[in-house]
């Protein structure tokens, strides 16, 4: 069944070599076909493929479903891309081609049981992204494509370096099976050198943190998302970051079994530093793209600390909610920035007709949902996540220090909350009203993502089962 996931994407890849103007109406339908094997996998028992190198378990079934929905929404939104930005048919074709490759790489890394395949998938997704950034032909986009190429490959190389060290630490006792997540998990106590494993994990974590824009690389991702067309940013936040976070979840679960206190100390310090910088960067931000991009880093930090604190349900709920809400906001930027990128005032005014009104309501709801106002799934995930953090603090030998850390995180989050409310009010109540056009495809994409976010509220039992 797993192999069927690649079929629609291969078809998109092939179609991208032909006249995409004729076939582009069918592309969202073709990408929707991914849902068929994804749903079928959801109801099949856990299985291993290709000599245990790939696997289907509860975690990646869930991640695949989330990514499939985001992928379909982005394909829908791509329909109206040419109405918002200047793009030639050649670049349009190229975008679809590398989008398909990117998605294939992402599926490989999410379903990987072998750490090596996880890395190969991530590298494939990274390299194909360079081209998606390059579909924008401005000098700024070109410079950022180079930046992405260099920084992205450094991050990926650090991850591979860490994987090799982890493999080296377990190979004397597990042999070639030391490459498999499942083998490492079931024989974690037999690891030959725990210290080497921890150095390896630190490299993997730092590589992943660079990819996600953590301290000290807070601005590189925001600049790239600013330079690229908005669907690239939607794909980053919905698909690429999902693949990295899934990998990081798996690696941190292994590191936790070996030495929980080291993992907690390392992650909390890194998370606090990142959140400190990001909160103030968000406070000074002047355009939608950077605002959403930096807020993405904030949410990655939260997911990670919830996960390492034992709040698996909270981390997964937060992950899925973020994967739906953030691409929705990035897709909206195409319309919101129709008067120029620095016009936040009045950005939510001037929408007429059913499509316009619906767009306005959806964007308002997404903006409020991303700052965790109830009944957003993020409200519940943060509630459960912070409970898990407090439970962890109560059981630790550093109660006061951890409570101080949690309090600092809450204060930093309140700065971000304030900025989002301020931006929302400026969008809604300030500025002149000017007529703006919204297209059916992007409203369709937003409706799909809104329904998926709502469905999360009814899926707590399912998500809890994965976390358990």
């Amino acid at each position, binding site marked *: 069944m797993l192999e069927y996931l690649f079929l629609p994407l291969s078809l998109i890849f092939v179609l991208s070599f032909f006249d995409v103007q004729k076939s582009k109406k069918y592309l969202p339908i073709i990408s929707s076909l991914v849902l068929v094997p994804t749903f079928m996998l959801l109801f099949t028992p856990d299985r291993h493929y290709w000599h245990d190198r790939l696997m289907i378990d509860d975690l990646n079934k869930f991640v695949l479903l989330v990514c499939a929905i985001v992928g379909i929404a982005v394909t829908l939104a791509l329909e109206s891309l040419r109405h918002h930005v200047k793009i030639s048919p050649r670049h349009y074709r190229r975008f679809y081609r590398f989008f398909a490759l990117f998605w294939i790489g992402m599926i490989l890394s999410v379903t990987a049981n*072998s750490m090596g395949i996880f890395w190969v998938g991530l590298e494939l997704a990274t390299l194909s992204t360079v081209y998606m950034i390059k579909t924008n032909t401005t000098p700024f986009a070109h410079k950022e*494509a180079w930046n992405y190429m260099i920084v992205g490959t450094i991050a990926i190389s650090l991850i591979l370096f860490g994987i*090799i060290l982890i493999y*080296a630490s377990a190979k004397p006792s597990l042999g070639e099976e030391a490459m498999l997540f499942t083998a490492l998990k079931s024989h974690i106590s037999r690891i030959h050198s725990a*210290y080497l494993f921890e150095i390896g994990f630190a490299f993997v974590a730092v590589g992943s943190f660079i990819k996600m824009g953590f301290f000290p690389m807070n601005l590189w991702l925001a600049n790239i998302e600013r330079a690229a067309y908005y669907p690239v940013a939607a794909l980053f936040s919905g698909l690429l970051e999902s693949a990295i976070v899934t990998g990081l979840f798996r690696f941190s679960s292994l590191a936790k079994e070996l030495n929980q206190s080291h993992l907690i100390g390392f992650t909390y310090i890194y998370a606090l530093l990142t959140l400190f910088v990001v909160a103030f960067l968000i406070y000074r931000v002047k355009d939608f793209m950077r605002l959403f991009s930096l807020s993405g880093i904030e949410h990655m930090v939260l997911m990670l600390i919830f996960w390492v604190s034992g709040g698996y349900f909270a981390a997964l709920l937060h992950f899925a909610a973020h994967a739906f809400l953030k691409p929705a906001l990035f897709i909206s930027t195409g319309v919101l920035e129709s008067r120029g990128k620095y016009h936040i005032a009045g950005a939510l005014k001037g929408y007429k007709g059913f499509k316009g009104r619906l767009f306005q309501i959806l964007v308002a709801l997404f903006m409020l949902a991303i700052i965790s106002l109830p009944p957003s799934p993020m409200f519940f995930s943060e509630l459960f996540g912070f409970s898990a953090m407090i439970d962890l603090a109560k059981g630790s030998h550093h109660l006061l220090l951890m409570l101080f850390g949690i309090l600092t995180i809450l204060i930093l989050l309140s700065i971000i909350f304030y900025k989002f409310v301020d931006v929302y009010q400026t969008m809604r109540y300030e500025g002149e009203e000017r007529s703006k056009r919204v297209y059916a495809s992007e409203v369709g994409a937003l409706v799909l993502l809104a329904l998926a976010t709502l469905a999360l509220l009814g899926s707590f039992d399912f998500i809890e089962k994965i976390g358990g």
Partner: protein
Amino acid sequence: MTNLFIGLFLSTLITALLTTRLYRLFLWYGLNSIFLGLAALEQYKLLDDKALLISALLTLLLKGLLLPYLFKLFALKFHTERNIPPKIRLQYAILLIPAILVFTFYLINPILHLPGKNYISLSIASLFLSLVLIIEHKAIFAKVIGFLMMENALFLLGMTATEGMPMLIELGIFFDLLMAVVVINLLFEVEHA
């Protein structure tokens, strides 16, 4: 012999850090890859692992000969500036390089009982030195060479610390490396279009 080749591998990397000429940098990268390939051949003789032989030959041919040649062709084609002064001054670089080496040996202190411990520390040092190479240059070609030297550090680690990675993974890495070179070429094409 493995020690000698790895020593030469490190010395070419350090020399590359101090060079100010582009073609010389390609030469040091080629030599760096050749010494790595020779070290891999030595390891093959020791372990009798066929996968290591294939990787060693690929390293010698692809990274040692083909890539430096391709990069020189690209540089000629795009009339790239050949003078590439590093941003870190020489006096600071000669303090930084030994500091990195000492730090990585300190880092592996708790695993001194493991076989191949020196190689692990040298690989980590090579990784950090390659990062310095990427940071200290503004020129894209020098950054790309830094990235490729980082790949070499990865291969050194894979070869010595794990006595050879699974073949599939090694081939995957080579494939990605080639793809990266294709992407680099195309980015240059676009830049000069």
